[in-house]
């Protein structure tokens, strides 16, 4: 039997001016289940709270309704007071008779009647309230960082510096990511390798960081504070412990003409290789597809040459499992290969720009490799077809980006700046050359960005043509670029020696499958979704998983590093406590009634619904039902509204409470 106490607050005169609080209290007093009702000038004041506490003891109250301001204002206050009086805090609710009543209605009778109704509804709610205990979840203070580009390295270093273990997983043989491929960086033109490689080394040498390169995420189980990650360590065919990185193996390898992906296929590498000289770890990997030993069984020259006997042709993939409490996803981006429509993609190709068919049409990242001192040309700008220095270079921006009709409507954000950078690098290296840029708009928000762009235009002699290119074609050894200058209103035709396309920044090709393993959501471009665009830009909706860098959307290096540190800070916040404590407004499954249709799982925004097997005493599977992981559940209740048999129920907002309120309307 409920014994509810109702406390009607005057809020000075804020409520009592329009609501007859005494009448409301008197009305409340005669409601079934109400044991005590009174009114008071300021319920939130110390005397008001004491009044409440005293009443709980004197009248053996089992629940409290404070009719006062909005619960958004003082729910915490009164729940704390109720708790201090020995009640479960969730047995205390507020009837909002100020914001929703006295402040918005002038007529005293109407406002009083409405206030009485609101109190009645809340009494019905509290009568059916349940004692709820806070939910605690233990936290494993180790973190996983997926992706060893600048975002992953930064996040890993920050977390490791805070004293927590980090597992850093990189798919490629070396960490470094796209930043390691860049020549110079805007807006300062400092050498990318010079600022990147020390960080790579720091990450590899950090006592708190376990680096798994040439490794991929196999599966992820668990939830915030308690993930279990299985990592596939792909067979390198080289024993990392034995290898000294001397490089003799590569020198001996007879397969020397394999296009190097790191150099955008401009340079060549051996079958046993490190992708670039500053690779971390500096342990080679055997490309089994091209290695003669793997292809024909004959060769093995590298193994013979290897002093420490590190070559191991028998090596197999290994699965390692790591317990972690938090995950930072930093898997970066890919550039759109624009020559044709990828199978199953909604994005149209750009065949008209000759990419993939005209050798001297390249993308921005390829240009970076041409301009890089450690690149295949040693930093000389030489075009791919004949190795000649191009005298006229056309840069085309927004290739793929901002083209709704081609399937990508977003701006890739970095192209305006890097194209400006490219014109400068080109100008610095080919003094008699001329750079043309076709652009739609120049977007340069960022510290010192517009100044940098203006420098390209005003000091470095780049010719900016506002307009799009309609067609490209090969004529002799030239690439003819036909476009329009929309500012002047004339057709333009340029005989270029080299064309550089600023192609769209895209999500990684397998971004969706990783998202599915992680149970995080992604947008229609496969960029990972943050929990809130403005206020939770670093967190995933799935608790305990954080985002850093371009996997979330196009980003430049400063933004990427900022977000990586922010993600690290979120991880450290999580790790600051031994246990996670959260409000117990979570869904619960009635396992007796659940028939396992998993409609709840289909609508759950948090991936909080798991399968649970119900077995008999002999261990035979009787049925599979839904189970809510309270550590992951966000408490929205969408599952309950979806469940046909109402076998899942949201604590704090049960059907019984809601229906009782509706019936008391």
């Amino acid at each position, binding site marked *: 039997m409920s014994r509810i106490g109702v406390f009607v607050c005057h809020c000075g005169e804020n409520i009592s001016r329009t609501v007859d609080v005494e009448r409301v209290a008197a009305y409340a007093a005669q409601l079934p289940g109400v044991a005590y009702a009174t009114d008071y000038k300021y319920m939130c004041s110390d005397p008001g709270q004491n009044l409440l506490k005293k009443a709980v003891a004197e009248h053996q109250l089992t629940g409290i309704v404070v009719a006062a301001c909005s619960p958004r204002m003082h729910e915490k206050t009164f729940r704390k007071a109720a708790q201090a009086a020995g009640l479960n805090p969730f047995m205390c609710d507020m009837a909002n008779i100020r914001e929703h009543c006295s402040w918005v209605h002038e007529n005293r009778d109407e406002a009083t009647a409405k206030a009485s109704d609101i109190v009645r509804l809340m009494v019905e709610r509290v009568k059916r309230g349940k004692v709820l205990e806070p939910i605690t979840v233990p936290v494993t203070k180790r973190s996983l960082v997926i992706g060893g580009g600048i975002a992953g390295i930064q996040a890993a270093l920050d977390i490791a510096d805070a004293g927590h273990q980090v597992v850093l997983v990189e798919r490629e043989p070396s960490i470094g990511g796209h930043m390691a491929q860049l020549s110079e960086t805007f807006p300062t033109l400092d050498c990318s390798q010079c600022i990147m490689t020390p960080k790579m080394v720091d990450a590899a040498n950090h006592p708190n960081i376990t680096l798994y390169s040439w490794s991929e995420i196999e599966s992820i189980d668990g939830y915030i504070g308690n993930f279990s990650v299985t990592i596939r360590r792909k067979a390198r065919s080289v024993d990392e412990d034995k290898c000294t990185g001397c490089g003799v193996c590569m020198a001996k390898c007879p397969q020397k003409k394999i296009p190097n992906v790191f150099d955008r296929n401009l340079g060549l590498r051996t079958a046993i290789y490190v992708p670039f000289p500053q690779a971390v770890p500096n342990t080679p990997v055997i490309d089994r597809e091209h290695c003669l030993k793997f292809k024909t069984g004959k060769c093995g020259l590298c193994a013979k040459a290897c002093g420490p006997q590190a070559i191991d042709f028998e090596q197999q993939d290994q699965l390692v499992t790591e317990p972690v409490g938090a995950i930072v996803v930093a898997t970066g981006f890919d550039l759109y290969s624009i020559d044709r429509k990828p199978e199953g993609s909604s994005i149209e190709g750009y065949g008209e720009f000759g990419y993939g068919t005209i050798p001297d049409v390249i993308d921005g990242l390829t240009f970076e490799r041409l301009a890089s001192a450690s690149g295949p040309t040693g930093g000389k700008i030489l075009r791919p077809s004949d190795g000649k220095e191009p005298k006229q270079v056309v840069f085309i921006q927004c290739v793929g980006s901002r083209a709704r009709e081609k399937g990508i409507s977003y701006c890739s954000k970095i192209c305006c700046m890097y194209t400006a950078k490219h014109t400068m690098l080109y100008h610095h290296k080919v003094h008699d050359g001329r750079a043309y840029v076709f652009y739609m708009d120049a977007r340069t928000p960022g510290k010192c960005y517009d100044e940098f762009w203006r420098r390209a235009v005003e000091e470095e002699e780049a010719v900016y043509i506002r307009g799009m290119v309609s067609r490209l074609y090969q004529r002799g050894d030239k690439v003819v670029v036909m476009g329009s200058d929309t500012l002047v209103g004339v057709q333009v035709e340029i005989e270029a020696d080299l064309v550089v396309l600023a192609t769209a920044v895209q999500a990684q090709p397998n971004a969706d499958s990783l998202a599915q393993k992680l149970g995080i959501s992604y947008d229609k471009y496969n960029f990972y979704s943050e929990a809130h665009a403005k206020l939770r830009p670093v967190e995933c909706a799935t608790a305990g998983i954080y985002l850093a860098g371009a996997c979330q959307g196009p980003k430049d290096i400063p933004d990427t590093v900022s977000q990586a540190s922010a993600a690290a800070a979120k991880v450290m916040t999580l790790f600051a406590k031994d246990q996670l404590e959260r409000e117990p407004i979570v869904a619960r499954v009635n396992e007796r009634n*659940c028939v396992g249709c998993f*409609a709840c799982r289909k609508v759950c925004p948090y991936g909080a619904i798991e399968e649970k097997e119900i077995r008999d005493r002999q261990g035979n599977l009787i049925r599979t039902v839904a189970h809510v992981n309270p550590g992951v559940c966000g408490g929205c209740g969408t599952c309950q509204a979806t469940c046909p*048999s109402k076998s899942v129920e949201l604590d704090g907002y049960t059907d019984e409470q*809601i*229906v009782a309120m509706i019936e008391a309307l």
Partner: protein
Amino acid sequence: MQQNHTQLADDSYFAAVTNAIRTETTKLLSEGTVAAVIGYQAGTRAGTVIPTIITDAAKAGDLVFSPGCVNNLALYLTKAKKEVRPAGKVAIIAKGCDMRALAGLLGESQLKREELHIIGVACVGVKGAGAGSGEALTTGTIARKCRECTVRAPEGADVVVGAVPPLPEFSPVEAEELARLEAMTPAERWAFWKGHFSRCIRCMACRQVCPFCYCEQCLCDRNRPQALETTPRPAGNMAWHIVRAMHLAGRCAGCTECERACPMDIPLNLLNRKMARELKTLYDFEAGLVPVEKGPLTEYREEDDQSFIK
């Protein structure tokens, strides 16, 4: 108006389907491919059938296929009927409309495809309400749903038996009835449904024969809270049929078993049909032969229509 009704398939069609079912059943059971075959056997009254579960190859000869094979046997694969079938792989005779229900049940984790052997029937149609038990299948006696069938040749079955002979064009009686209702004013529609629901006795036949009503605890049997009146009064009847239609929206495969089973002749499928149509219009969803991961009411798109929201 007197109409001349033509017979839709001669006896040889049904004999061929029956024989093929028997042959397949014998093979499946004698080879041990399946533990049981769910099919139809002749009923006690002329032209009627009853659902049956056969576990012995020697009984394969009991199975029949006739214009009286109205039941959606998918019912016997649901959890509501979990006690009646043996463990292991089960074969089921399924018309196209029944197969849509199977696809739905697969999508709702109620069945595993690998535990199912579907004997699809290329179906001419079955008899509808009002057809006498002894009558033949004609343009006059064919069920309303069969007049608008789009899945006569079921795809995705393990084996398909029978071949549909050429059929005449049918007037879409149910679609016309739906259009008639939609053209009414809300008050007229309310009167229409109130009249029909006033006959409802809450015998729950609509629920019990529905392959999708496999809940362990139906919302209408729940008493804490009692959100729906359990008594067969007009108030509770209205609420029950609204809730039923809503729970089936986006799931109902259109087998119309609810309407057929209703002893009070309430045109229940009009509700299901209406919801299916709206979900098709709104979200381009149609119950099909292929299981889908999410139904129209368990997924969303950011660009979904919200013209009704202020």
